């Protein structure tokens, strides 16, 4: 195989390369693409400048999330074969181009270019970027895969925290006119292009004979020994679909709270606070949920390395369901308990994303874990539709007669049911039958063809 700059063979780490250089490479990509969570700020800028409706300005984001799931699924195998530098470079080009195309569209008064640019092109960057470092991190940190993917995927959750002050600052400086919003998109495209470049310049894959520093001395196992199931075979196993249900329902339950965080807080505690205080408190509630979502990704995913993947999902799904029950039973009678319960639910939501690559690795091995992960992310796309649909349709169908916490009884009860189903699905997961693993000769052939060009 010819070894070009972007080829996997060009980025095999030399002896002495620190594996702690890989998480910042992953974070450079994930912190950037996590900007998607802060779309609401650019959305408001577009509404102010172009006089567009909320529904129209939601389109680029919605398309981007759909493209995230689709491109992760479609390009997963390609990402696995070509390696993380190629994937991170493509993600950088697509994500930055999405902003630049959007800037052009706004400057020309052609909103459809924003939908195509940010939603379609940028969305492909989201999907490829999201899965790009996952299998590489798990090979470097085979001894702590949950922690490694937790760091990267925490970056995706934290991306909004970087994007919020950046977007607000640029819109404030350039103004909320067509020219100002176009300039904001232009600068963000260039800035994210530069920021993400650290990822594809820095990322390295471990050599075949590399071992984690803390590997047991007696063990002669390589980091990628164990199960080795191909992506196409994984799709034919019940374990994959059980995990799909778990991820979909765990995400749906989190979105159920996240989607309605602002009106939910107003419904629960709006009566006890005056207008300006309430606005500040609502902003604080949304902020603290973002923090819990982000920290949960690292803390719980790292904990899974100690307690095991199955046990940690018992916590996310079982305790998550109980916390929803607590919110239902207590209503607005105790604010502290409400806040604590909401924070843990959101931390479990984020952790569900962060821990699933390590769960996949446990079940299917690292052989094609990136490609399998890509296909599993279609569960996220489904949850992105399911969660808001359940909460919005039920809450809004109650009309003016439903007020306060009672408006959320039905939708939260559905969330509890989904989490219980997810809990049962987790209980049904068993190790994958070794007959599904590729033959050792195929595994060795893959490793040799990668190594031959070094």
């Amino acid at each position, binding site marked *: 195989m010819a070894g070009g700059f972007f080829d996997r063979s060009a980025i095999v780490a030399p002896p002495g390369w620190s594996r702690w250089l890989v998480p910042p490479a992953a974070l450079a990509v994930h912190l950037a693409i996590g900007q998607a969570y802060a779309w609401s700020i650019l959305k408001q800028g577009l509404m102010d400048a172009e006089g567009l409706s909320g529904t129209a300005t939601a389109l680029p984001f919605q398309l981007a999330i759909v493209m995230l799931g689709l491109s992760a699924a479609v390009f997963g195998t390609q990402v696995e074969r070509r390696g993380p530098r190629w994937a991170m470079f493509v993600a950088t080009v697509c994500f930055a181009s999405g902003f630049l195309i959007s800037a052009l569209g706004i400057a020309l008064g052609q909103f459809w270019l924003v939908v195509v640019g940010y939603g379609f092109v940028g969305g492909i960057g989201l999907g490829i970027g999201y899965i790009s470092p996952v299998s590489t991190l798990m090979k470097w940190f085979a001894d702590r895969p949950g922690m490694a993917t937790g760091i990267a995927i925490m970056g995706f959750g934290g991306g909004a*925290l970087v994007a919020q002050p950046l977007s607000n600052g640029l819109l404030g400086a350039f103004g909320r006119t067509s020219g100002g919003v176009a300039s904001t998109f232009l600068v963000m495209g260039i800035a994210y292009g530069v920021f993400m470049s650290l990822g594809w310049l820095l990322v390295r894959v471990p050599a075949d004979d590399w071992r984690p520093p803390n590997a047991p001395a007696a063990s002669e196992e390589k980091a990628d020994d164990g199960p080795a199931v191909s992506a196409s075979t994984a799709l034919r196993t019940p374990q994959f679909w059980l995990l799909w249900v778990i991820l979909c329902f765990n995400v749906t339950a989190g979105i159920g709270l996240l989607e309605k965080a602002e009106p939910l807080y107003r419904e629960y505690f709006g009566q006890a606070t005056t207008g300006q205080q309430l606005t500040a408190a609502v902003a604080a509630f949304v902020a603290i949920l973002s923090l819990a979502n982000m920290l949960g990704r690292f803390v719980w995913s790292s904990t899974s390395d100690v307690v095991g993947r199955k046990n940690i999902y018992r916590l996310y799904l079982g305790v998550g369901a109980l916390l929803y029950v607590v919110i239902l039973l207590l209503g607005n009678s105790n604010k502290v308990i409400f806040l604590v319960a909401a924070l843990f639910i959101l931390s479990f939501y984020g952790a569900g994303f962060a821990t699933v690559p390590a769960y996949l690795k446990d079940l299917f091995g690292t052989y094609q874990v990136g490609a399998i992960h890509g296909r599993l992310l279609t569960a996220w796309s489904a949850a992105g539709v399911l969660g808001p649909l359940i909460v919005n349709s039920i809450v809004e169908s109650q009309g003016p007669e439903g007020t306060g916490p009672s408006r959320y009884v039905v939708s939260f009860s559905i969330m509890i049911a989904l989490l219980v189903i997810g809990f049962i699905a987790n209980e049904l997961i068993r190790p994958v039958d070794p007959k599904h693993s590729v033959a050792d000769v195929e595994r060795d052939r893959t490793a040799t063809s990668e190594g031959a060009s070094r």
Partner: protein
Amino acid sequence: MSHDASAARTSGGPSANRTVLTAIAWAWVGIPFLYGVYSLVLKIPALF
């Protein structure tokens, strides 16, 4: 590859250049991230 060579790969101390590179790489992602966290934490007292 021998066990010793393999061990050198895993436990050999990074060169000064690599230490600097590691520091720059973590600062590159850490500074904007921490600034974002700081901006967010400032909002939280309004909740209580």
